[in-house]
């Protein structure tokens, strides 16, 4: 690929605890993720998948190595940016296993809030939210409260929220775990669509074998180490 990677990790290490209780969650991780690709992260429970996603999302601070996001060196044995929340707001969209929509905002407001936090006016944010809900096929549910949404609808609203600020990277931790295979397929198709049309890099942690064939690359983690990437699935 000729393009620059959006996410680039070199020798990233992360451990929790010290001495006898020390857990090496990530060891010497090297990874490049390119724009427009959908990457899968798999591995047994406790292998470090969530930790890796959190490191890329600038939520968990690694202990060693270096990390570039969108060409900018953000970690080099320490955070190089003081404003990690601002970085997340602009560059990274998050999708969670349980949708994590704010229960006191309705569907479009949940999407708009991300845009408002980034400095948009309410009108701008609303227009953007409605456009995204339309794009993801849930505009008919724009006024529903999260409690009234089905799992699949909620997850699509959550994707819309992740996309609100046109991030370079979307990180999803088991986004289909709570969905049946048909809805899981729809959600994965949407992420693929986002990746291809918006050149966003999508990294998805999953246990779900049903969707393994939907990634450009699948990386397997074992005891905090990245195994050689499997070739493009099917």
């Amino acid at each position, binding site marked *: 690929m000729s393009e620059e990677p959006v996410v680039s990790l070199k020798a990233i290490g992360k451990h929790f605890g010290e001495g006898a209780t020390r857990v090496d969650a990530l060891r010497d991780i090297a990874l490049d993720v390119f724009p427009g690709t959908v990457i899968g992260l798999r591995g047994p429970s406790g292998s470090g998948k969530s930790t890796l996603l959190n490191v890329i*999302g600038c*939520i968990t601070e690694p202990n060693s190595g270096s990390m570039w996001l969108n060409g900018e060196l953000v970690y080099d044995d320490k955070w190089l940016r003081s404003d990690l929340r601002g970085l997340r707001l602009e560059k990274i969209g998050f999708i969670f296993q349980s949708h994590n929509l*704010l229960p*006191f*905002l309705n569907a479009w407001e949940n999407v708009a809030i991300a845009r408002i*936090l980034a400095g948009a006016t309410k009108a701008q*944010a609303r227009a953007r939210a409605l456009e995204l809900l339309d794009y993801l096929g849930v505009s008919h549910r724009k006024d529903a409260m999260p409690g009234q949404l089905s799992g699949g609808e909620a997850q699509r609203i959550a994707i819309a929220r992740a996309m609100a600020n046109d991030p370079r990277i979307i990180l999803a931790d088991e986004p289909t775990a709570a969905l049946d295979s048909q809805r899981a397929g729809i959600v994965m198709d949407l992420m693929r669509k986002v990746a291809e049309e918006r050149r966003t890099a999508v990294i998805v942690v999953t246990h779900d074998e049903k969707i393994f064939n939907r990634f450009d690359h699948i990386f397997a983690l074992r005891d905090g180490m990245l195994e050689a990437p499997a070739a493009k699935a099917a």
Partner: protein
Amino acid sequence: MNLALKDIRHNLGRFLLTCLGLSLLLGIVLAMIGIYRGLILESLGLARAANAHVWVVEGGTRGPFAEASRLPGDTREAIAAQWGVAAAGAVAYQNVEAQHRGAIKRMLVVGAEIGRPGEAPQIVAGRPILRSRYEAIADRRAGLALGEQVKLGRDTFTVVGHTENLVASGGDPVVYITLRDAQKLQFDLTPAATRREAARTQAAGTAAAGGSTDTVNAVLVRLLPGVDAEAFAAGIVRWKQLGALTQSQQEAVLSRSVIERARQQIGMFTSLLMIVSTVIIGLIVYTMTIDKKKSIATLKLIGAPDRRIVGLIVQQALAMGVIGFAAGAVLINLTHGYFPRRLVLEPTDAMVLSGIVLVVCLLASGLGVRAALKIDPASALAG
């Protein structure tokens, strides 16, 4: 988009219930302050009603309210003859329990001279006392109708006029009669033994001229324009057997004796209620924050700055305080007529209290803010 408001709307029932509880607390605080203001007004009311510049009392006392003061009846003439005096009137005060319509009523009977300082002020109904015997002017609180008869001591008085909001510092309504009637009443009410003793000493010729029944409690002096009250009072004090207080000294004495204690008690209850309010607001804001833990973690993860999250919590605390206070104020304004004591609601008091409530809200939200700031954004991912 105001997150605080949206969240309140989402949990409206609980929020309003909390506000209601808070409004009752703050309403009580307002009522206490109102009662305190009422006490001040009532206790000063009698002294102010006298409309005097100087109070001449028994030497060495600060009477007639804070200490007992007895003066010979002829003191008035001596004072009236002083340079600078426009008018002087003798007054007598007597606490009386009277039988009225089958119930015992406590009242403060004021004896004053017709047309002289100390007379009943501002008659709101009926007429002033015109005849020197057996007429009375009662405060509305005494529950005596115009034309009604009331027995005080051995004599029966007819109520000819009404005053309003004139009560003694203990809350007893004030009834005015003439000084002569009051002196008779005082004599009638003195225990028989003391009376015989007095009669004997009088007969023995050792009592002061005029006899022991001709005593008054104070002489009220109104000065000519331009005469300095303090200088006049200082001149009076030089007559060893007399004391003198200017009107402002008299009010200060009253404030000190009556009001200080009330201020302490009411101040203590008010502070306790404010502490209770702080704890309630604090706990509610804290639980509201903990209930939103996941939402706050999600907001932080998406990239919301801390000030946005602190704002969410502080705004909710302030909203609670503002609504609670406003509802409390409305409540007290609607119900203040039903309180047993006079409630004086001063806008400045309400303003000061609302300021304190806002500070209390800020303090109370501290607990919630602390909890919110400690929430780890990564916890949004778990589960």
